[in-house]
C-alpha cells in the first residue's frame, strides 16, 4: 500500500550533522503525487529522503508509529476533513514532527488558521517549487527544538548531579549573603553541627563561630572581598555545635558573588576535631618531652653516643665539667674521657651490657681536657628502634667528685683514726709495761733493803733505787712528750721553704756530722714549699739524720742523701743512708713503735721514730721506710699538699 523510495546522495558524508543521513518523509496523498514531491525535493541535494506514502487513515497512524518520520506532508482534501484529522492526530501524539500541507485545493479557512491549529506550513501544489525551502525550514525548526530540549535535559541532569554531589558530600557546604545570612546548607550540616538544614538556613554565619575565632574569620573575609583570590582557606577554627560544644573545622571560603544561583559567599568545611585533638595531644606530649629534656640538661651531665660510642650530643653541663668545646667532642669516641682508674674489662662489661639493651649504672672516674679528673655517677640507657635493637645510648651523669673526695678523706680519717687508736693501745700497753718495770724494780729493791743487815749492801741498793727513780722520771718525761704530740691540735702551721730549712738543720747537727765523718748531700730544689710545724719538722729531720749517723755501717763513713720527689697528693722528702739497715721483714710492724729497738745499741731508746711518725701524721702526712741489711735505709716523708 505504500511505497518507499530511497534517494541517495554522494555528498551525504558532508551533510551537516543537524540532519539524519536519511530523512524519513511520510506523505498522506495519492501515490501519483510522490514523483512530483520527490522531484521537487531533489533540490535539497544534501539531504537523502526516504518516502512513505499512504492514503489510508489507519495505515498512516501505523506508519507514523513504526517509523517516526522527521516530517509529514499531507494533502488537504476538499472536505478538509481527511488532512485536518491527520493534523489533529499528529498534534496530539507527535507534536514534535513538522506537519506541512500540500494541497490542490484552496480551503475555506485561511493559511493562518491552519497554522494556528498546529500546521507547520501550507503550500499549494501549483507552488510545489517552494516545497524544498518549506521542508528545509520545517526540518531545521524541528531540529532546533529538539536540540533545545536535549540541552535543557542535559542541564537538568548536570544540576541534579552537582546537587547530589553537594547533598551527599561528607563535608558541609553553605552559601550566604554578604551580611552572613545563610541561604543554603547541605545536609551534612546536620552530621557536623547538629542542625536541620531548614533551621540552619536564615541564621548568621557568625553565630556559629567561636567568639575568639571571629576576628580570624573576618580578617580572612575582608581579604577575600578586597583581594584578587576567589577563595581563602582558614586552617582551623572552632564552630559551635547545636548542643553547645565546639568542634574544630577547616574551612574554604569562596567568593561566589558573581555566580548565578549563589550571588554571595560559599564555604565548605571539614570537621577536623579529631585531627586537632591529636595534634594538641602530640604538641602537649612534645612539650612535655622538651620540658623533660630541659630538666635533664639542667640537672645532669648528658651525652649521647651512637652504637660505636661516637659522641653525637653533649649538653652544656658536660662541656663545662669536661672543659671541652662542643666541636672537640662531637664525632669523637667517649673514650676521650677514660682514665686508667678502671681496667679494660670494666669498660668491656659496660659495652656488653648496653649492647644487650641493659641499662648500666655505676661510678666512673673521667678525665677532663686539662687532665684533671672528675667522678660521675652514671646511668647509660640504650634507645631502641622499632625492632627493639639499640641504636644509640644516652649517658646521664651526676658529678660526685666532691662526694668521692669526702669519701676518700673519710677513709683517710678512718685510717688515721685506726692507726691512732692502734698507737694508743700500744701506748697504754707500753705505759703499763714500762712504768711497771720500774715499780717492780723499786718493790724488789725495797724488799732486799728490808731483808739485809749488811750496811754496804743496803747502800748499794739505795744507789740502785736512785737510778730507778731517775729512769722512771725520764720515762714519765718521754711519755709526756708523746702525749703532747697526740693531743696537740693547736699546732702552729707555717709555710716553710724546704731547702734553707734543711740546710739550717744540718748546721745545727754540724758537730755530730763532723765527728762521724758523715757526708751529706742535699738535693732539694729551690722554692720547694711545705706547710708544716717548724718544731716538728726540725725534730723529724734531726731524728732521722741522727739515726742515720747512729746506725752507720761499721765499715764505712755515713753517706746521707736528702732528695725531694713529687706526686699529685704529696711532696716527698727522702733521707737515704748507707748504714747497717733494718730487717724490714722482721720488724715491719715495730719500726715505728714505741720503745722498740732493733739494734743492741746502748743509745737506742725506741722513741725517736715513734715520735717522728706521730708528728708527721698529726699533720696529715705519713712516713715509710725501705731498707736492706748492710746496705742502708731510705726514710720517706710524705707532706700533704694544699
Amino acid at each position, binding site marked *: 500500500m505504500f511505497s518507499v523510495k530511497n534517494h541517495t546522495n554522494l555528498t551525504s558524508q558532508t551533510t551537516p550533522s543537524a540532519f539524519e543521513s536519511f530523512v524519513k518523509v511520510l506523505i498522506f496523498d495519492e501515490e501519483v503525487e510522490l514523483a512530483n514531491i520527490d522531484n521537487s525535493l531533489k533540490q535539497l541535494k544534501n539531504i537523502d529522503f526516504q518516502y512513505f506514502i499512504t492514503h489510508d487513515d489507519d495505515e498512516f497512524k501505523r506508519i507514523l508509529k513504526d517509523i517516526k518520520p522527521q516530517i509529514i506532508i499531507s494533502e488537504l482534501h476538499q472536505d478538509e476533513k481527511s488532512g485536518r484529522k491527520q493534523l489533529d492526530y499528529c498534534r496530539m501524539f507527535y507534536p514534535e514532527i513538522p506537519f506541512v500541507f500540500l494541497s490542490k485545493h484552496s480551503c475555506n479557512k485561511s493559511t493562518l488558521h491552519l497554522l494556528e491549529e498546529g500546521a507547520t506550513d501550507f503550500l499549494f501544489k501549483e507552488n510545489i517549487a517552494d516545497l524544498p525551502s518549506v521542508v528545509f525550514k520545517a526540518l531545521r525548526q524541528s531540529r532546533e527544538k529538539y536540540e533545545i530540549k536535549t540541552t535543557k535535559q542535559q542541564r537538568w541532569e548536570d544540576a541534579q548531579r552537582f546537587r547530589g554531589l553537594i547533598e551527599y558530600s561528607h563535608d558541609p557546604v553553605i552559601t550566604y549573603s554578604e551580611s552572613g545570612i545563610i541561604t543554603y546548607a547541605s545536609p551534612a550540616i546536620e552530621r557536623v553541627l547538629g542542625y536541620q538544614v531548614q533551621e540552619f538556613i536564615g541564621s548568621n554565619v557568625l553565630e556559629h563561630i567561636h567568639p575568639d575565632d571571629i576576628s580570624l574569620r573576618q580578617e580572612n573575609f575582608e581579604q577575600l572581598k578586597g583581594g584578587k583570590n576567589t577563595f581563602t582557606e582558614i586552617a582551623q577554627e572552632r564552630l559551635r555545635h547545636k548542643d553547645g560544644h565546639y568542634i574544630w573545622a577547616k574551612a574554604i571560603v569562596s567568593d561566589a558573588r558573581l555566580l548565578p544561583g549563589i550571588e554571595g559567599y560559599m564555604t565548605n568545611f571539614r570537621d577536623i576535631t579529631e585531627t586537632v585533638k591529636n595534634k594538641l595531644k602530640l604538641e602537649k606530649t612534645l612539650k612535655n618531652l622538651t620540658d623533660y629534656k630541659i630538666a635533664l640538661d639542667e640537672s645532669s651531665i648528658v651525652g649521647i653516643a651512637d652504637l660505636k660510642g661516637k659522641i653525637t650530643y653533649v649538653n652544656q653541663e658536660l662541656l663545662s665539667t669536661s672543659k671541652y668545646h662542643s666541636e672537640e667532642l662531637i664525632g669523637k669516641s667517649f673514650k676521650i674521657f677514660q682514665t686508667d682508674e678502671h681496667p679494660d674489662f670494666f669498660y668491656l662489661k659496660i659495652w656488653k651490657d648496653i649492647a644487650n639493651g641493659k641499662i648500666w649504672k655505676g661510678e666512673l672516674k673521667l678525665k677532663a681536657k686539662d687532665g684533671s679528673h672528675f667522678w660521675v655517677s652514671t646511668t647509660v640507657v640504650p634507645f631502641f628502634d622499632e625492632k627493639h635493637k639499640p641504636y644509640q645510648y644516652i649517658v646521664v651523669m651526676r658529678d660526685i667528685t666532691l662526694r668521692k673526695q669526702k669519701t676518700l678523706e673519710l677513709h683517710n680519717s678512718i685510717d688515721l683514726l685506726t692507726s691512732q687508736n692502734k698507737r694508743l693501745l700500744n701506748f697504754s700497753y707500753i705505759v703499763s*709495761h714500762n712504768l711497771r718495770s720500774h715499780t717492780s724494780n723499786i718493790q724488789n729493791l725495797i*724488799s732486799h733493803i728490808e731483808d739485809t743487815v749488811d750496811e754496804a749492801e743496803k747502800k748499794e741498793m739505795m744507789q740502785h733505787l736512785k737510778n730507778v727513780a731517775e729512769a722512771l722520771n725520764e720515762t714519765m718525761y718521754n711519755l709526756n712528750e708523746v702525749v703532747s704530740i697526740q693531743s696537740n691540735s693547736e699546732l702552729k702551721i707555717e709555710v716553710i721553704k724546704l731547702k734553707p730549712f734543711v740546710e739550717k738543720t744540718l748546721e745545727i747537727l754540724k758537730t755530730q756530722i763532723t765527728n762521724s765523718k758523715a757526708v751529706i748531700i742535699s738535693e732539694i730544689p729551690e722554692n720547694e714549699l711545705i706547710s708544716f710545724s717548724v718544731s716538728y719538722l726540725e725534730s723529724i729531720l734531726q731524728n732521722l739524720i741522727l739515726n742515720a749517723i747512729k746506725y752507720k755501717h761499721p765499715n764505712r763513713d755515713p753517706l746521707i742523701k736528702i732528695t725531694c720527689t713529687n706526686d699529685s697528693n704529696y711532696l716527698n722528702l727522702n733521707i737515704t743512708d748507707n748504714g747497717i739497715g733494718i730487717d724490714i721483714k722482721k720488724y715491719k710492724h715495730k719500726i715505728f713503735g714505741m720503745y722498740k729497738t732493733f739494734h743492741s745499741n746502748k743509745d737506742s731508746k725506741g722513741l725517736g721514730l715513734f715520735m717522728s711518725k706521730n708528728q708527721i701524721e698529726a699533720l696529715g702526712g705519713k712516713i715509710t721506710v725501705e731498707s736492706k741489711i748492710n746496705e742502708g735505709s731510705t726514710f720517706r716523708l710524705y707532706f700533704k699538699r694544699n
Partner: protein
Amino acid sequence: MVKKLCIIDDDDLYKLLLKKSVDNLGSNVEILTYPNGEEAFIELSKFKNSPDLLPDLILLDINMPIMDGWEFMEQFVNTKNQFKKNITIYIASSSIAKQDIEKSKTYPEISGYIVKPILKDTVANLLLRKAV
C-alpha cells in the same frame, strides 16, 4: 731441784736482784743470763745436744729489743725437739696486760706467768719446782 737457771731479760737491775735472791737462798744454782731473745736462742742452741749444759728453768721477759719473748718462743717451739732436755719456761714480766697473760696460756711449753717483782719466796718455790 733446779740446778741451772736461765734469765732472758734486758733489765740489768732485775737480773742483779734476782741473782742476789738466788744466792741468798744458799743453794748452788748456776745462772745464765742473756739480754734478749736472739742472743739467748743462739747461745742455747749451741747446747741443744748437751743436756747437762742446758738450763732446767728459763725465766723469759716479754719486752726486749731485737727479739722479744714471744719471738723467742716461736723459735724455740719450732726447734724444741732438737733440744735434748725438757726445759721449764716461765714468763717473767712487769706487764700486767691481760693480753700478755692470755697469750702465755696459748703455749703448752710455758708453765706459768710471773708478774715482777719476783721476791725471795717465789724464787725459792721456783727453784724447788713448786707451783708459783
